[in-house]
């Protein structure tokens, strides 16, 4: 079994100060993952 390594040191997730600086919408799920059609980019045919 792999011992999980906490990520907080390797790649800091949101810390409290970031959360207070940015409004609540930053932590809304629909801003974290956004799906775009692979055909949804102008400049290809």
């Amino acid at each position: 079994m792999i011992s999980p390594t906490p990520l907080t040191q390797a790649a800091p997730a949101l810390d409290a100060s970031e959360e207070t600086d940015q409004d609540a919408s930053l932590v809304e799920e629909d801003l974290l993952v956004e799906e775009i059609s692979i055909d949804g980019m102008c400049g290809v045919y």
Partner: protein
Amino acid sequence: MHEHFAGAGTAAPDFDPRLRYELAPDVALRAEPFGALAYNYANRRLTFLRSVALRELVRALSGFETAGDAVRVSVPPDAQPSYMSALASLAKCGMIRAC
């Protein structure tokens, strides 16, 4: 390609944080300054992961016994619900899968 598409219509099983998850086999995860791009070659879906933290969470996912553990260890409590939802979205479009 068409064998893959045969499965595209079937919905992925619902995200279950009690299971271990991994990046799906046909998926490329490309780091970007804003987080990452994830592209599934089989179903041709493209998603934007809009934080570095989410990218790192996804990269480390298979190292945790459950997806829930991964989120609880890596993400501050206030943000956990949204990161859990983010993983659910990624599971839904086939970027991550239970393993």
